[in-house]
């Protein structure tokens, strides 16, 4: 089966993708004419106000919802095939850990679902716990962890099947600013170590700029892509970057793209 799948260096390719939700008051277009390519290993953020369809687009890529029109391929396969083949890992705003399972059992869940042997699973879980810095907590239960730690477990779980694509729907949205910045740094390190492409949904401009190679700006009614901004900030994403002029410049660029006008310089720090 896997031998016949076409190889491609595009993690995600969307052509003319649209999504319509039928409601009592008539059809609502959540997404129209989305053209998006995410290269293997690339970090792409989707940003925009509520209702711009950024989460919807992510759910289409994940095959949690189906596109109404257009074509969507993940590593050259239809989204459904990619989901079944475990080509992507996913993390949500809510960690979504199973409360009756330990941290280790939560991280290993995708492996257990795919009948990976116990020895191999244990080894992989230990490796992932190390990667997200939770080695000392593998026997704890989710209710014994802080929000940030729960989210790290969720990220470890999304990496369990060694996916080449990570889908993240505001994974740090419910965390405090300090934890958030710390996990952003961790995520860039993890993404670099695993070489996975990332599609990251956020409504935070600094977060999008800090993490991404490209920031995709979206707009509502109907949900669509209005701009794509290359950050060009290079490989190293550390705390110094947060203070650099290049970073502020890109934050401004994304903000202007979001507002559709030039932003007063006085708004800047």
């Amino acid at each position, binding site marked *: 089966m896997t031998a016949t799948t076409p190889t491609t260096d595009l993690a995600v390719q969307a052509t003319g993708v649209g999504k319509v939700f039928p409601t009592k008051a008539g059809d609502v277009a959540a997404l129209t004419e989305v053209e998006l390519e995410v290269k293997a290993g690339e970090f792409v953020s989707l940003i925009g106000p509520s209702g711009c369809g950024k989460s919807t687009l992510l759910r289409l890529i994940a095959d949690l919802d189906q596109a109404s029109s257009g074509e969507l391929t993940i590593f050259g396969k239809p989204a459904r095939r990619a989901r079944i083949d475990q080509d992507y890992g*996913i993390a949500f705003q809510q960690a979504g850990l199973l409360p009756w399972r330990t941290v280790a059992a939560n991280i290993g869940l995708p492996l257990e679902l795919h009948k990976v042997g116990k020895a191999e699973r244990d080894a992989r879980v230990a490796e992932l716990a190390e990667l997200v810095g939770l080695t000392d907590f593998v026997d704890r239960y989710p209710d014994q962890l802080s929000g940030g730690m729960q989210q790290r477990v969720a990220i470890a779980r999304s990496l369990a099947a060694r996916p080449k694509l990570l889908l993240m729907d505001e994974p740090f949205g419910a965390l405090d600013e300090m934890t958030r910045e710390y996990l952003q740094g961790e995520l860039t390190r993890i993404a670099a170590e695993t070489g996975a492409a990332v599609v990251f949904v956020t409504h935070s401009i600094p977060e999008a700029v800090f993490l991404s190679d490209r920031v995709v700006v979206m707009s509502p009614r109907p949900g669509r892509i209005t701009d794509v901004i290359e950050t060009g900030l290079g490989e190293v994403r550390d705390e110094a970057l947060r203070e650099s002029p290049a970073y502020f410049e890109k934050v401004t660029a994304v903000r202007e793209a979001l507002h559709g006008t030039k932003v007063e310089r006085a708004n800047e720090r």
Partner: protein
Amino acid sequence: MSAALPSWLRVVSPIAVGLLIVVAWTLYVQFGDAPRALPSPIAIGQEFVLRWGIIWDDMLVTGTNAAIGLTVGAVLAVILAGLAAAWRPVDGMLAPLVAALAVIPIVAITPILNTMFGASSQFGRAAVATIAAFIPVFVNVLRGLRQTRPVHRDVMRASAATSAQTFRMLTLPTAVPYLMTGLRVAGSLAVIAALVAEYFGGPSDGIGTSIATYAKSGRAALAWAYVGGGILIGLVFFLVTALLERLVTRHAPA
């Protein structure tokens, strides 16, 4: 919000209130004009100790009926709730029946069941306890099977879990705390049902039968001692089911 009581006070205060009631009761029987059916707690205590042998035998009869009712009722309820959760049509068929079952006072059908299965059979009593236990377990489990959170369903789907895996690893564990709540409620109901059923015929054993017999024959202290036996059964059922609930729901989300 008032400040929480210190833990020792939370244990001591109900005991103190209980003792106070016993003392008031004793004084009332001793010095007031208490009815003959209300003997002093001391007399009841003496009867309880003296007749413990026969009280224990009758406790076993009633307790066994209640335990059979709880087990059979709970198993039936879990199976049927599982079917109802899986197939909408089953739900549509069962929901009105369960609602009808829930509004019948079980005591109303007890004489019929007792007559149906004969004066020497415990079956009627166990059946009444079964019906009583079935309803809360069914209602709670059915609800529990529908409590899976969207984010958990997304995680399972994104991990390409089969529907059998999703049921076993997500739907079922989500429903377990609800099952435990149902069991706790059903435990008390099964004891009450098994005991009350004895007032409406059947074999001449069991706690309820004895309470009725001794109350009518003027041995009030022994009747009250049997009431104590009934309370003990209820307590055992409550403690066992409550402990089970605690063990199982340790890591459930608040």
